[in-house]
């Protein structure tokens, strides 16, 4: 394939590299983090693109491609990454390919370099991780390597930025020299054969021997000793190239992968992660909630109790609040996950989880996405992209909505508070943990059942594989981690944001129309109370309530009525909306800090119309909790599941399967409890 450099097309530099080769650090350095993250058209593969920072005075685009091991793809996503490297659908063929090579793993990383050179790319090799190589008393001659490979080779220390100048200079030279009419050879089939591959490696091993040399530790002792020189020669001759993993890493692994301590550490890390997500995020979430109720009442003051004012405060601001309220949890989750990943622990976690997860058709790599699901299903489903096996990836996506996401917490807190005696709040903590454990076990059971019927449900078959590099432990690089956290957070806002906001407006329409200006008895009431009564009256006579009455027969077996039905409909925007819509429906006029007490009181008094039976009993409330554990109520999750699986089949099945399970189990719980005399 050929492309021509027209005047308006600026050169494209693509960064390629194996995972953990320092590629992203280099990209961040060159782009100054002003990048856009875009999907490859029609796929879930993502790349970041940016112009090279102005201060480097190179007019070129730089593209950070997903990490690849070789040009022969082994999964669908890898194939897209490789194809786009040869000819990007939007940017075409790269003028320059920069490959990052971990010098301490020279032979393994040179394999990709060789493939790229064979494919006729204009390659610049960047050698990283030289500090690790020097710890092994070795150094590398970039001049020799450049001679042998026939391409530019530059050493870079990504921490100090040393070597960047040389890299910029070679990029400049390469751009001016580039013969863009050179043809690429995407037919890498030749490498597909075992013999060719082994030959490549043999060649690489020879290169390795020529370019690596023994370097005495810098102890300032330049004294020449004939014995020392002899020793060096012996080392060089019998060169046992750096094939021993980092010593400290081996020592740490003795604990982290230990049969007993490994599990203790694993659960400790998980508990700390969870506790931090909930405890650190909760003050921030309260702050965001407070800010939005302030904005909401501000807009009410500004626009009055008008259609427009209501649209702003109850529709738009409510929706925006529902999006942003989860941002602290998502930020903290990705910050911790990033730190764990960068330090090297996450790969061990995935390794420990692989066996148990593979027994139910999942993969060790499902572990991190499932963990993320406890904060929010949306980033969790996006995180499944690292699972190369499509069947396992789809199965992971399938069960993620069952992870107890943070939107369920306010609902559980309210319902549990209703169930437990008020003077014993500690029971509430136990009950909440029990709900979590219950949801984890149920999701695992459902996963194994789905796995049994996978031909009907998942409809993908692939070679199940778990091959994961266990990187050397190291101090996490905070700037990279923060950068990645930020990237994930913006993705969440971009992807979930619009859906949640549209839905909030739509639900607002359902609850506001047709009785936009209801009449209420205003005598002896304050302005605030009147407006709250109007709100309640409006929702009681709204489309939502008509809808609720339609579904009442469905709610009846669960011991619930149309009012709870309306609240359940409202939860399709976001689950936590359940609490505020209950407040609306039960005409809670006492807004403020003791709203929960007011709702609880209203719940205790609520009766089913006609029969006079109590609406919220131990049985029906427990049933509701069970319902929330399973029901697929979040439409943003449905949307993201559709996007990531590429069809409606999985999301539709999720809605059908999870909603039926929720309904049936809730019904069984209510009838069972009643059977045993618990009402």
């Amino acid at each position, binding site marked *: 394939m050929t492309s021509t450099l027209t005047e308006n097309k600026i050169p494209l530099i693509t960064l390629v590299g194996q995972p953990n080769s320092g590629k992203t650090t280099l990209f961040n350095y060159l782009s100054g983090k002003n990048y856009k993250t875009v999907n490859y058209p029609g796929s879930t593969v993502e790349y970041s693109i940016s112009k090279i920072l102005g201060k480097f005075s190179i007019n070129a685009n730089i593209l950070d491609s997903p990490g690849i091991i070789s040009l022969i793809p*082994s999964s669908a996503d890898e194939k897209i990454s490789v194809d786009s490297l040869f000819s990007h659908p939007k940017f075409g063929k790269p003028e320059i390919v920069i490959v990052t090579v971990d010098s301490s793993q020279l032979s393994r990383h040179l394999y990709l370099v060789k493939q790229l050179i064979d494919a006729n790319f204009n390659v610049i090799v960047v050698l990283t991780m030289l500090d690790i190589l020097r710890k092994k008393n070795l150094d590398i001659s970039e001049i020799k390597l450049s001679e042998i490979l026939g391409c530019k080779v530059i050493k870079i220390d990504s921490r100090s930025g040393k070597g960047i100048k040389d890299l910029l200079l070679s990029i400049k030279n390469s751009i001016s020299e580039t013969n863009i009419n050179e043809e690429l050879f995407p037919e890498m089939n030749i490498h597909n054969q075992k013999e060719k591959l082994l030959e490549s490696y043999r060649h690489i091993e020879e290169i390795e021997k020529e370019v690596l040399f023994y370097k005495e530790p810098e102890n300032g002792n330049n004294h020449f000793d004939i014995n020392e020189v002899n020793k060096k020669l012996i080392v060089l001759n019998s060169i046992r190239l750096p094939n021993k993993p980092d010593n400290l890493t081996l020592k740490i692994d003795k604990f982290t992968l230990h*049969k007993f301590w490994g599990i203790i550490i694993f659960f400790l890390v998980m508990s700390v992660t969870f506790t931090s997500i909930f405890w650190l995020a909760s003050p921030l979430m309260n702050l965001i909630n407070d800010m939005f109720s302030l904005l909401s009442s501000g807009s009410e003051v500004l626009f009055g109790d008008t259609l427009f004012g209501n649209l702003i405060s109850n529709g738009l601001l409510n929706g925006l609040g529902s999006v942003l309220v989860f941002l602290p949890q998502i930020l903290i989750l990705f910050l911790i996950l990033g730190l764990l990943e960068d330090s090297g622990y996450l790969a061990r976690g995935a390794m420990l989880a692989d066996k148990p997860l593979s027994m139910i058709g999942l993969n060790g790599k499902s572990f991190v996405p499932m963990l993320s699901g406890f904060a929010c299903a949306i980033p969790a489903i996006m995180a499944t992209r690292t699972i190369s096996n499509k069947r396992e990836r789809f199965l992971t996506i399938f069960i993620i909505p069952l992870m107890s996401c943070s939107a369920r917490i306010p609902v559980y807190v309210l319902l549990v508070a209703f169930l437990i005696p008020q003077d014993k709040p500690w029971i509430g903590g136990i009950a909440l943990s029990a709900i979590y454990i219950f949801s984890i076990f149920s999701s695992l059971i459902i996963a194994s059942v789905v796995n049994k019927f996978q031909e009907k449900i998942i409809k993908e078959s692939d070679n199940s594989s778990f091959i994961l590099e266990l990187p050397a432990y190291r101090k996490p690089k905070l700037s990279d981690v923060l950068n990645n956290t930020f990237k994930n957070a913006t993705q969440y806002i971009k992807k979930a944001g619009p859906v949640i906001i549209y839905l909030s407006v739509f639900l607002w329409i359902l609850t506001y129309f047709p009785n936009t200006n209801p009449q209420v008895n205003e005598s002896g009431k304050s302005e605030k109370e009147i407006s709250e009564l109007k709100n309640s009256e409006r929702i009681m006579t709204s489309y939502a309530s008509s809808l609720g009455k339609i579904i009442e027969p469905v709610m009846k077996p669960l011991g619930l009525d149309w009012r709870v039905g309306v609240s359940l409909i409202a939860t399709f925007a976001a689950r936590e909306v359940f609490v505020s819509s209950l407040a609306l429906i039960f005409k809670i006029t006492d807004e403020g800090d003791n709203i929960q007490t007011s709702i609880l009181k209203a719940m205790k008094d609520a009766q089913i119309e006609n029969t006079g039976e109590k609406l919220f009993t131990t049985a029906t409330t427990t049933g509701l909790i069970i319902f929330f554990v399973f029901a697929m109520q979040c439409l943003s999750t449905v949307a993201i599941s559709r996007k990531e699986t590429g069809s409606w089949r999985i999301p539709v099945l999720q809605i059908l399967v999870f909603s039926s399970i929720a309904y049936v189990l809730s019904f069984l719980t209510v009838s069972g409890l009643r059977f045993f005399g618990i009402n």
Partner: protein
Amino acid sequence: MRTAAELKLGEKAIIKDIDNTHPSSHRILEIGFTPGQEIVLLTKSIFNDPIGLSIRGTIFAIRKNEASCIII
């Protein structure tokens, strides 16, 4: 015929061949498990699977099933 899946903890071995009938064999070759290389079984996960093998200075966690295509 022994395979890497049968290594004992801490045991070293030289790779003789890779069984290319295994669907993961190509990826295993690509990441550097080539004949003649020394591997060491460094760690095992709980339930003894996956296992951690060192190759060319790196540790890889690999399922036993996949390690069984590494002939030693």
